């Protein structure tokens, strides 16, 4: 049976080993200050389910499975707390005004990002699992603590 994690707000992360690095896509919306990560690519219809003021999940429209995450207030809060998290920008398509700025798409870079993302998700999963009684602030801190693993 596929591994799932039941965490506060009923967040059910996908089995980490099932993520295909080649399908992960990342977008930074500069006008909204949001970093959006699609685990299975952008083509999977989903809805947004806010968890707290820095994290939302993307859930499949039909199955409710989590298919991605959004880091809200990315520059205002996330990067302020953890300057290393700027590494997200290396792989993100940046959306600003009427323009989309695409990243270099070298296969090695994408694979590297995928590996970092999987590591981060593992840390996030541990944080959520350990924090079932945590307040929203504690939960946010735990998510922040997970982000440095992307920068290793």
């Amino acid at each position, binding site marked *: 049976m596929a591994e799932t994690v039941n965490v506060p707000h009923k967040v059910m992360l996908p089995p980490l080993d099932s993520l295909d690095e080649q399908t992960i*896509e990342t*977008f930074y*919306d500069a*006008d*909204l200050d949001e970093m*959006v990560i*699609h685990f299975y690519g*952008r*083509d*999977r*219809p*989903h*809805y*947004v*389910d*806010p968890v707290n003021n820095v994290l939302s999940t993307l*859930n499949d*429209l039909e199955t409710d499975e989590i298919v991605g995450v959004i880091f809200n207030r990315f520059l205002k809060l996330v990067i302020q707390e953890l300057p290393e998290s700027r590494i997200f920008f290396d792989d993100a*398509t940046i*959306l600003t*005004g*009427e*323009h*989309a700025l695409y990243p270099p798409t070298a296969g090695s870079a994408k694979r590297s990002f995928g590996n970092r993302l999987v590591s981060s998700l593992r840390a996030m999963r541990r944080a959520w699992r350990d924090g079932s009684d945590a307040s929203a602030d504690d939960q946010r801190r735990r998510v922040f603590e997970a982000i440095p693993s992307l920068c290793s």
Partner: protein
Amino acid sequence: MISEVDPLGRQIVMPKAIWETHVISQRPWMAAYLSSVEQAIRSPTWIIDYEERECFYAERALPHLPHLLLKLVVEFADELHGVVITAYPLKRQKPSEGRRWPKP
């Protein structure tokens, strides 16, 4: 591309370039919901003040998805003219504080 009047009499637009950049580029399947965005501008269920912007929430605006809201984020250049800067389905939730319309 879209130009509609909201319940407060303001002209709200969504230029094609914004629709394609901020919505379609990362959610291509949202192309099927363009008319839903128009409906959400004309007939939102509620409007919330959010920092320097406003968020429009519309119930039953998404065909076959009655359990979800359609959320629009709108930026205003002045009191009478706004631009939608993104749109996406949202898990249904209660109106938060800061409701601009309808008045609590």
